[in-house]
């Protein structure tokens, strides 16, 4: 009796958490379909703000930059992060556990500190050598640098879950290193790789702080555009962009999550 009352009151927190998480997002999405430019009331369903987006060259350009940045950086971060995660796993007997702290550090570093230091670094290198002028290239480098630790940790944790004897089994079957990689390690990691890619993708697409500091004149992304546009207040157009961003991030996160979940069943049937 007492127990159930406690449970019920704890349930309230669950619903409160949901409310504060999703109600603001719901408002943004709802008002992106509002037919008039006001927050005061919802005057009717309309797609006019989305149509306006498609006519706005600056927004389309920002959309394009965001896409190029997210896809390129995630793909490269998946490659580098996987190599790193595998390396940490492969040489874990060398007592290099403390190395993990070095990669952890950027994850816990405040974005603002990280962004400013990246900017200072790029500007300094540019002044000395003429390379690395802030533009999409420097943004891709910066994004890869904060995505790699996430990928490495994801891959590492997947590898640790595996039975180490399987590696010995491949050796017993005379697999060469590249055969082992191609026929065993990569297929086993497939789910982790896809989910690492989409995790990196969501990190990149909604990053504002680090992008802001490392961007150049031609590499405005959607979050940077939104920031500069809110000087004039939040327009329904901004709501429409935000809605598209929300949908994109949700989709990427859902794919990442679904594949991670589905993996155990699949692996049993395929191995």
């Amino acid at each position, binding site marked *: 009796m007492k127990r159930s009352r406690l449970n019920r009151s704890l349930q309230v927190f669950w619903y409160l958490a949901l409310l504060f998480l999703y109600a603001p997002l719901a408002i943004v999405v709802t008002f992106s379909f509002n037919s*008039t*430019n*006001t*927050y*005061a009331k919802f005057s009717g369903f309309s797609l006019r703000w989305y149509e306006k987006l498609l006519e706005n*060259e*600056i927004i389309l350009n920002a959309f394009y930059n965001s*896409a*190029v940045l997210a*896809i*390129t950086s995630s*793909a*490269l971060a*998946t490659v580098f992060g996987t190599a790193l995660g595998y390396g940490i796993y492969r040489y874990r007997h060398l007592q290099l556990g403390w190395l993990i702290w070095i990669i952890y550090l950027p994850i816990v570093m405040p974005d603002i500190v990280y962004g400013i230091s990246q*900017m*200072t670094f790029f*500007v300094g290198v*540019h*002044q000395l050598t003429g390379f690395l*002028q*802030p*533009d*999409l*290239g420097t943004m891709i480098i910066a994004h890869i640098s904060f995505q790699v630790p996430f990928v490495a940790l994801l891959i590492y944790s997947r590898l640790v879950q595996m039975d180490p004897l399987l590696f010995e089994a491949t050796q017993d079957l005379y697999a060469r290193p590249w055969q082992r990689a191609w026929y065993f390690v*990569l*297929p086993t990691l*497939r789910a982790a*790789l*896809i989910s690492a*890619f989409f995790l990196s993708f969501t990190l990149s697409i909604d990053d504002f702080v680090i992008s802001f*500091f490392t961007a*150049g*004149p*031609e590499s*405005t992304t959607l979050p940077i*555009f939104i*920031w*500069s*546009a*809110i*000087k*004039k*207040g*939040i327009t329904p157009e901004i709501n429409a962009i935000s809605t598209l961003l929300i949908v994109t991030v949700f989709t990427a996160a859902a794919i990442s999550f679904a594949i991670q979940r589905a993996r155990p069943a699949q692996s049993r049937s395929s191995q």
Partner: protein
Amino acid sequence: MRTMIRSLAMSMLLTLGLAAGTSAMAQEKTLYIFNWSQYMDPEIIEAFEQKHDVKIVRNFYNSLPEMFSKLRAGGDSQYDIIVPSNYFVPRLIETGLVQKLDHSKIPNLDNLHPKFRDPSFDPGNQYSAAFQWGTTGLIYNKETLGEHSDTWGIMFDPKANTKYPFAMIGDGQVTMGMACAYLGFGYRCTDREQWKKAAKLVLETKKRENFSGFNDGTPQLQQIAQGVIHAGMSYNGDYVFFKSEDPEAYEDIGFSIPKEGAEIWVDNMMIPANAPNPDLAHTFINYILDAEVGAQLSNWTYYSSPNKAALPMLDEVLQQPPSTPTDAELKRSHFTPSLSGEDLQVFQQLWTEVQSR
């Protein structure tokens, strides 16, 4: 697996190719503009692009300090045009972030109204040419605060308005200037003792229960229409813009230049010190100062035009107050003083104190 790797590789190649494509496009002549957002008619941009066969890339900033720090971090070699407000002009000149204008390339400079031709913040227009101007005044709800409110007392006099929420502008120099004006020191006060008194007044005002917060001028206009605040500080141009967009919602909202005084400001086109295309930048400034383009610009932004030759072509709503202030209103509107050195430090300390207490 193989298909996944292939598709990954494909998407990488594709994006790299696209990225290379965009940077190749940048080889053609490009003009980089760094401006406030929604401050330029896109048709003007298109017309200029066609007329001179160039590409224009536009970037936006949210505040002047933001623009300033971007310029300092290498931006002075990445942008061709910036549009700072009057009180930031001396700071940009002193730090060497901007270059002198070549007047021989800007014949349309003569179109500027005499009052913008030799401004105190940049004598002789050596570095800057006016883009748009306006005033920062009092916005108020006519129904609750009276049809004709024209005093900062609505905010600073605790007895004048005890229950209706109000906001002040987040830019310290403006809010402090308004407080100075209310105390009778004038909007442009820079005396330390007067500053201290003004800071004390703002602090006391901030602690009142119906103070809603510091905010920028434009969002305040949205808040006042929603009834979140009943009085605030905002810009005449945005007031006119919002009012013509949604006459119903702004029917009961008034704008005034209080009798104690208010701010007049002007945003100026300048060329960063190491701009990639200074010649094109001069051409662009000259283009904006053209009479017809100047009128088109103001008709789009709803701000006042510094272009004397453009005045007859302005929309009717722009030819009357508050877009075009009366002589009396102009007389009590003042530029925000440009601070430097010790003055700037003292002011920033004071303002930080006001905000944090």
